[in-house]
């Protein structure tokens, strides 16, 4: 059954690139672009045509990344999440990734639905939703930095870092 971890690793990387790539797009590009577009009255181009598509791939690639990661851990899944038996490094990465996935589905997506008008919300609720979605997205950007360190270094290079 060697093909299971091989396919899982491939899927984990592809979906992970899409998830974190879109997270960085939102934070490094779209936030500033939306501010400029709002100022010149062209924000609808982003909020109507770009953001919903980006969010679709963002939230589902997060799910695929997590599931493929869980499959990749295989029988080491519990050891990773309990940070035991030499799995502490990758385990921290797995915990950070899990927190990020929960943030996507529990905070970012429900609030983005209000912001984009996919779910009814008052103006006051939209203002609050904008702040919550923004800060959660920033938290995920912050968490992605140690997550990638522990994911990348916590397994293949754990001897170098002593993890």
């Amino acid at each position, binding site marked *: 059954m060697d093909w299971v971890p091989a396919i899982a690793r491939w899927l984990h990387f592809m979906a992970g690139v899409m998830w974190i790539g879109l997270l960085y797009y939102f934070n490094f590009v779209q936030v500033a672009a939306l501010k400029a577009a709002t100022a010149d009255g062209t924000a609808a181009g982003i909020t109507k045509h770009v953001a919903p598509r980006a969010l679709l791939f963002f939230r589902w690639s997060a799910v695929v990344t997590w599931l493929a990661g869980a499959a990749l851990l295989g029988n080491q899944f519990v050891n990773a999440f309990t940070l035991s038996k030499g799995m502490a*490094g990758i385990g921290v990465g797995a915990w950070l990734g899990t927190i990020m996935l929960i943030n996507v589905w529990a905070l970012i997506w429900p609030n983005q639905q209000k912001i984009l008008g996919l779910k009814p919300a008052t103006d006051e609720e939209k203002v609050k939703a904008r702040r919550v979605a923004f800060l959660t997205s920033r938290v995920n*950007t912050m*968490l992605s*930095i*140690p997550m990638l360190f*522990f994911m990348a270094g916590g397994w293949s290079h754990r001897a170098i*870092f002593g*993890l």
Partner: protein
Amino acid sequence: MKNPLDSLWGTVICGVLLTAILYFIVKSILT
């Protein structure tokens, strides 16, 4: 005090600091 996450580079710096903190915590757990 301003929230560092309001700034993009504040977010990146927080992420790097968090990496160092978690690294030393994990190292101390293991040794």
